[in-house]
């Protein structure tokens, strides 16, 4: 469901029906109240930059020597996920914590990855 969503240009996150909390990563039970009544929802794709590193040593499988911004994004719906920040030079001055970001979908391999870009840019 998650990857079907990214291929359709949607960021889908699970939400627990009884306790109404969104959660990540996908699993069939709510990690907070343990209910099996859970549903997929399309979320806004907007959030803030919570933390990151700039990885100067990408693994060979990425076929790039460019630094990667490996980021933790807090979505407005209250879940955190790992992603990349794209669309800005990978420099600390471009990456203030708390910066507003929004999702884009980038084809990589046989799937579309949700990546994030500064909102001020779009």
């Amino acid at each position, binding site marked *: 469901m998650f990857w079907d969503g990214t291929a359709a240009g949607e960021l889908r996150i699970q939400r627990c029906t009884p306790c109404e909390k969104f959660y990540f990563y996908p699993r069939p039970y709510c990690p907070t109240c343990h209910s099996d009544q859970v549903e997929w929802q399309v979320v806004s794709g907007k959030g803030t930059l919570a*933390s990151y*590193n700039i990885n*100067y040593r990408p*693994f060979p*499988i*990425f076929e790039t020597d460019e630094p990667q911004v490996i980021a933790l994004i807090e979505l407005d719906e209250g879940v955190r996920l790992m992603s990349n920040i794209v669309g800005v030079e990978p420099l600390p001055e471009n990456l203030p*914590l708390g910066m507003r970001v929004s999702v884009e979908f980038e084809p990589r391999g046989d799937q579309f990855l949700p990546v994030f870009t500064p909102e001020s840019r779009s």
Partner: protein
Amino acid sequence: MNATSMHQGNVAIVGAAETERIGIVPDVSMIHLHTNAARRAIADAGISISDIDGIATAGPTAIELADMLGIRPRWADGTMIGGCSFMALVRHAAAAITAGAANVVLVTHGESGRSGVGRPPHIRPATSISGQFEAPYGALAPYASFTTPVLAFMKSRGFTREDLAEVVVSQRLWAMPNERAQRRDPIDIEGVLNAKPIAYPFTRDMCCVVTDAGGALVLMSAERARDLPSADRAVYLLGSGEGTESVIVSQMDDLDSFGPFRRGAKEAFETAGVTHDDIDHVMFYDAFAHLPLYMLEDTGFVGRGESAEFYRDGHTRPGGRLPINTQGGGLSYTHSGMYGMFAIQEAVRQLRGEAVVQVPDVRTSFVQGVGMMFGAGGSLILSNERP
């Protein structure tokens, strides 16, 4: 009938040894780093291999280790929670010994982390949680994943990169006189900050060394330990704790504090019946320079936001009031992969008065481990005196 406590000094570490060689050992395979350390620890205890009836290890199976040593144990534990597995295994061994499920337990570690001899392939399946939700973004190596929460931690406390560098500088002072340490060159804050960038805000020296090494421990009841020729070198388990959190670092409950450190340390102090003021020496698992800062605060030695100043004021250095990582730690001494065993080994050496850079008058040591990328924790309180 009251059960005997697994803590409070009722179980003793009676044998402890690292592999004869550590660092770059290209001619010894992973399993024989285990067996070399195991045979040395058994000799150190002054017992024979046939006395061992319990086997605990992480990495290879307990079956493989026991068979390679020629042991047919009646108790086996293969708990695998990353680098703090060995804190957990010491704790589990103590439980087994006091419950009568084993009499003499061997705990081993060995990894050919640098040379890769006989190392199983290090592949995370694309279908695993980390394979799906972290690896595609580049978070494959520990330096690319374990470091992701650190800027949030630093921001919440007003810490700087200099504060990360200070951890490296303080620990290097312990490693410099130690011939077994991998990094021994003097270094200052500027030197750390100007080292090769790895993953901002981390430079090379803020990341652990990568080595080949092994270590092993032998445990038995304190009663039985009294009859050993090595009885006066016994180290007693006073208290312990362990715990796990999320399987991927992005799902830490809090980015700037780790629950298993807080809860494991609390349980260790409660079960030991000692306070922070009773601790003379500390070992913090430091795969990266941020971990001792998290640990100092989460295990309760200082308050929130006070860890950087504590390092800066020199309290953790040689001659300081709370010596930390006294062989240089994973940052300077050795780090084969699952470093936890080496933190315990140094605590045992300090408690026996046999460390290369010996802290005077050590009676009680606190050891905190971390597993995976903020996935698990294990805490031990050890003493050279039985309460």
